[in-house]
C-alpha cells in the first residue's frame, strides 16, 4: 500500500539513455573509420589516437580533481569522444608532443574553463584542431600518402584532394570516386573514408543519438552551392561530388556539427545551423586562404547557436 502512494512528479518513463551510454555509442560509431585509417596509415594512427584519448582523459581528471575540486566525471566518456575526434582531425605523421598540446587545448581551454561537459559553447575537438592548425601550420599540413601496410608507414607525403583544387594544381591527380569513398587519399586520418564514416553515422541515426537535420542540410548545402558554381564554370570549379567526398565534410557534418552541446536543440534551428555550416564551408573552400573550411565553419556557427535557439523557440501551448 505504501508503495502505491509513493508517486514522483512527471516524467514517469525513463528512456534508459544516459550521457555515458550516448558517449560510448559515439565511440563505437567512430570505430569503422578508425580501422580504415589504421589500414591505410598504419601504426602511427593507433599511437596518436591512444595519446590523444589518454591525454584528454588525464587532463580532464587532473583539472576536475585539483583545480575545480569536484568529483571527476571522466567515466562519462565525453573526454574519450573529444580525444578520438581530435585525433581523427590530424595528419598521421604529426609529432606526438603536438598531439599532447592539442589535448591540453581541447580540455584546458575549450572545455573546462567554461564549466565542463554541457557548458562549452564551442566543440572542444575543433577548437583544438584549429588552434593546432594556426600554431603549427607546417606539421599540420604535411599529409602522408595512404600506403596499405600494417606496420610503420614510410615518410611519403602527398597532397590532399582539396589542396590540389585550392592551389590550382593538376586536377587529374584527384583520386577517383571509388578511392574517395573507401578512403584511399591523403588527409587527416579519420576523415578519409566516406563509407566507414557513413556506417558510423547510420548507427548513430539508428540509435537516435543524432537526427538527420544537421548532416543532411550541411552536406546538401555544400553540394548545391558547389553544383551551381560547377554548372556556371566547370573548368574552374570541380564536380560537387568531389567537394562532398573529399576533406572533412562527412566527418564534420555527421560527428562534430551534431555535438549535442554545441548545436541547436530544435529541428528547424538544426536545419538553419546545417545550411550555415555548409555555406561557410563552401565559401572558405572556393574563395578562402585555407583549402578546407569545415572546422572553421562549424566553430563560427557554434557561436550563433544561442541566437538560432532564440529565433526558433516553439510557440507556447494555448498562447
Amino acid at each position, binding site marked *: 500500500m505504501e508503495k502505491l502512494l509513493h508517486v514522483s512528479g512527471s516524467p514517469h518513463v525513463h528512456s534508459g539513455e544516459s550521457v555515458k551510454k550516448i558517449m560510448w555509442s559515439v565511440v563505437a560509431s567512430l570505430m569503422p573509420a578508425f580501422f580504415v585509417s589504421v589500414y591505410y596509415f598504419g601504426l602511427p594512427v593507433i599511437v596518436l589516437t591512444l595519446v590523444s584519448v589518454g591525454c584528454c582523459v588525464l587532463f580532464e581528471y587532473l583539472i576536475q580533481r585539483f583545480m575545480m575540486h569536484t568529483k571527476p566525471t571522466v567515466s562519462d566518456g565525453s573526454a574519450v569522444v573529444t580525444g578520438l575526434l581530435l585525433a581523427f582531425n590530424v595528419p598521421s605523421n604529426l609529432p606526438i*608532443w603536438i598531439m599532447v598540446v592539442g589535448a591540453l587545448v581541447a580540455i584546458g581551454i575549450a572545455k573546462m*574553463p567554461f564549466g565542463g561537459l554541457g557548458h562549452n559553447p564551442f566543440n572542444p575537438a575543433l577548437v583544438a584542431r584549429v588552434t593546432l592548425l594556426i600554431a603549427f601550420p607546417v606539421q599540420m599540413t604535411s599529409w602522408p600518402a595512404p600506403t596499405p601496410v600494417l606496420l610503420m608507414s614510410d615518410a611519403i607525403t602527398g597532397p590532399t584532394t582539396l589542396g590540389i583544387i585550392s592551389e590550382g594544381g593538376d586536377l587529374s591527380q584527384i583520386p577517383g570516386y571509388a578511392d574517395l569513398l573507401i578512403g584511399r587519399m591523403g588527409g587527416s586520418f579519420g576523415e578519409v573514408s566516406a563509407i566507414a564514416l557513413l556506417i558510423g553515422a547510420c548507427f548513430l541515426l539508428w540509435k537516435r543519438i543524432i537526427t538527420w537535420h544537421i548532416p543532411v542540410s550541411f552536406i546538401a548545402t555544400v553540394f548545391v552551392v558547389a553544383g551551381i558554381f560547377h554548372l556556371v564554370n566547370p573548368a574552374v570549379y570541380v564536380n560537387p561530388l568531389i567537394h562532398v567526398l573529399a576533406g572533412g565534410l562527412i566527418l564534420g557534418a555527421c560527428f562534430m556539427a551534431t555535438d549535442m552541446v554545441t548545436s541547436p536543440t530544435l529541428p528547424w534551428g538544426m536545419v538553419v545551423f546545417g545550411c550555415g555550416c555548409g555555406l561557410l564551408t563552401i565559401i572558405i573552400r572556393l574563395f578562402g586562404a585555407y583549402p578546407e573550411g569545415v572546422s572553421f565553419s562549424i566553430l563560427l556557427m557554434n557561436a550563433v547557436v544561442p541566437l538560432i535557439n532564440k529565433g526558433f523557440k516553439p510557440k507556447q501551448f494555448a498562447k
Partner: protein
Amino acid sequence: MSNKLNILTRGFFKENPALILVLGCCPTLAVTTSVNNALGMGAATTFVLLLSNILISALKNVIPNKVRIPCYIVIIATFVSMIDLIIQGFLPALSASLGVFIPLIVVNCIVLGRAEAFASKNNVFDSMLDGLGMGIGFTIALVLIGAVREVLGAGSFMGFQFIPSEYNMLIFVLAPGAFIVFGFVMALVRHLVNISEERKKLKKAENNRH
C-alpha cells in the same frame, strides 16, 4: 601614510587597470607579442599617466566642468606627442615595433579614466601616486601577458631565444593567442587577488575576536 601607500599600490594588482578594471584592452592585446614591446608600451603609458594626472589635478579648479573632456584630451595629447617624439628619437627600433600604438595612448581609456575618476577630484600628490601606481600595474599586466606570449609563441624571453623554432606555437604571436593568454592571466590574477582578500578578512575577524 598607509593611505598614501594604498593609493600607490592598489593599481598593481587589486585594481589593476588592464586585468581587473579591463580598461585599455587594445594595446594589451596588440603590443604584447614580446616582453620588450610590453615594457616599452608600459613605460610610455606610465609616463603619460603620471604627468597628465599631475597637470589635470593642478588645473582642476581652472578647467570648466562642461568642457573638461576636451581639456583632458589636449593635456594627454601633449604628453603623448612628447613621449612619441622621445621614443622616435632615442629608441627607433621600439618606435618601429610599437608603431601607431604610441600615438593611440591619447585615446587609451586608462589615462582618461584616471583623469576623470581620480585626478579631477584629488590633490596633486595623491594624483601623482595614483598615476604612477596605475602605470606600474598596467606595465605588470603587459609584461605578464607579453612573457607568456613570447615564450610560447617565439620561444624567447626579451629577445633571448632558448626554445628551438620548430617547437614554437605561432598562434600565441597572433591575435587569437592574445585573447587566450589575456583571459588566462586575468583569471589567474583575479584568483590570487581573491585569495589575498579572503586572508585579510580572516585576519580581521581573528583580530576582532581577541
